[in-house]
């Protein structure tokens, strides 16, 4: 299986497959064997001990996360500012807009409209293409963690959820990740058959974007219910198991040049990255013995939020723009 097919299969909800004996590149095979030696194991255990001690003494926090939140808030508030100050910089809402007059259309919303309406509108084609190229360059699901307004609220709900889990007051109930693929298909069929953009009715992304710009309404109750569900029942449920927008952008970013790159040689396999990750299955490769190569590109379901990069104590995960080298 090639990297792309593996990436897509994870995106569609299948569990990552453990590499078979023949799936390793020679370099990776050597490294795994080397890491299994007694001396190396000792070194790693000692290294992790030092890391923990350092972390306790000097907690660094997540710098990139705050920057990302700032970007996300800026993007969303720009719609409002642009309108209220009448500067015509970014008009509309996240589903469809004009950036300095140039059409932009959310890829998923545009697909919903085309499927329900059954006409191809030129402006939508322009908007769709522009946004498609932009998010392809930036990594597809980058939309989720850097632009989607629901993602931000869901992150805050997740913080609460994890606190409650820590206090053993609630438990995370995972769902089958293939559900998201089914939702995508069902909402596509519903749009085609009913002639209505059914998904938009419950899309927290659209609802929140409009609420921020045009004022909140009844639809916020739905968003609140989703957040409560995530706090008390299932961690990040909407983004992980339901949102068709996430899947759409995941597909857009499958071949994106902007990726998170994993380096096997420096990794201690602490698993810190997987604890913070929205989509930990994409980090399956960091588990000891799983990396197929010395360097591995993280799959398309990754939202490029950078929390793993920020959290990794050994700097084994980095942003990379292919052809440009390491970014952070």
């Amino acid at each position: 299986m090639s990297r792309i097919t593996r990436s897509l299969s994870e995106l569609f909800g299948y569990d990552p497959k453990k590499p078979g004996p023949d799936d390793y590149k020679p370099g990776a095979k050597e490294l795994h064997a080397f890491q299994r030696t007694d001396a190396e194991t000792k070194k790693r255990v000692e290294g992790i001990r030092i890391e923990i001690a350092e972390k306790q003494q000097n907690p660094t926090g997540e710098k990139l996360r705050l920057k990302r939140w700032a970007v996300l808030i800026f993007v969303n508030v720009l719609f409002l500012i642009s309108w209220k100050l009448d500067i015509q910089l970014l008009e509309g809402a996240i589903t469809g807009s004009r950036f300095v007059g140039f059409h932009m259309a959310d890829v998923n919303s545009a697909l919903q409209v085309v499927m329900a309406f059954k006409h191809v509108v030129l402006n939508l084609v322009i908007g769709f293409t522009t946004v498609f190229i932009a998010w392809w360059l930036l990594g597809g699901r980058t939309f989720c963690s850097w632009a989607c307004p629901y993602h931000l609220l869901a992150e805050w709900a997740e913080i609460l959820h994890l606190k409650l889990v820590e206090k053993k007051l609630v438990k995370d109930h995972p769902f089958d990740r293939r559900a998201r693929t089914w939702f995508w298909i069902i909402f596509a069929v519903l749009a085609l058959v009913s002639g209505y953009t059914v998904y938009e009715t419950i899309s927290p992304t659209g609802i929140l974007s409009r609420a921020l710009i045009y004022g909140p309404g009844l639809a916020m109750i739905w968003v609140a219910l989703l957040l409560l569900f995530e706090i008390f029942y299932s961690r990040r449920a909407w983004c992980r198991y339901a949102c068709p927008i996430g899947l759409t952008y995941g597909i857009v970013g499958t071949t994106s040049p902007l990726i998170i790159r994993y380096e096997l040689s420096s990794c201690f396999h602490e698993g810190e990255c997987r604890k913070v990750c929205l989509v930990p299955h994409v980090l399956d490769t960091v588990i000891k013995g799983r990396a197929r190569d010395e360097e591995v590109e993280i799959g398309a379901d990754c939202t490029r939020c950078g929390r793993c990069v920020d959290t990794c104590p050994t700097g084994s995960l980095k942003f990379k723009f292919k052809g440009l080298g390491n970014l952070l």
Partner: protein
Amino acid sequence: MAHKHKDGKKRPMTPMKRRKFMRTLVMGAGLIGTSLLGFIPVLGRWKERVRPPGALKEQEFLASCIKCGQCVQVCPVNAIKLADLDDGFGIGTPYLDTREQSCDFSCDGLQCVLACPTGALAHELNYPHETDMGIARVVRQESCLAVNGKGFKGQVRGPDYKGLLRYEEIDRWSPIRVSEHPYDLELCDLCVRQCPIEQRADQCDAGKPPSGDENQCPPKRAIRLVEIDNEDGVRRMKPEILDGCVGCGVCEMICPLEESVFVMDVVESRGWAA
């Protein structure tokens, strides 16, 4: 419940996997079910919405609108609102509450139509008289000031009313608050006087079409006052809606009574074909 293992043999799901599978089914059914609730307000016609100029026929309009509100942002009189969750599949679609704020075509160029990225507001539409938002209907003729032979003096709908209208003689480019434009009329004719179609037709009759463009001239009149019985010597007139009415709602909005003499009917045939 069984699924294939590596050796190809089918084995029963572990209880944990089984619970996860069931939970996923329930969640999925719940989510799809919730989204389909959006059908109810649409099929039940809970809201008969007056849509902005150029709106396609309702079903096509709901399908093609991308729910972005660009039309809201360009409207100079803030006439356009976005529907909420109780509109079901119509969530996020634009509509007008014409009594509160009607479309007075003060943008002339139909800015909402130009702003629409999906053609849910048909781009073929160029002039106000081509609009087809609905049609006005007289519902309270008995209370109409003109029918009762009365005039009107003062602020239409009081000092706190926030509605906007463009008064060409005051400022061609910016609408002002109706409350800032008091009237003194011997016989109330506000519905005819402020009708954007009538105003354009009058300008054309006077040989001065809007923007000097003959195409701006409405081919049909929209509303008029007709004389009625005046046995007691009091001059009385009643409003009559004509074929040229586009349903913009200015008459409904400008009617100074507690309850407007007019309502906007969203007619079945309304809307442009996609």
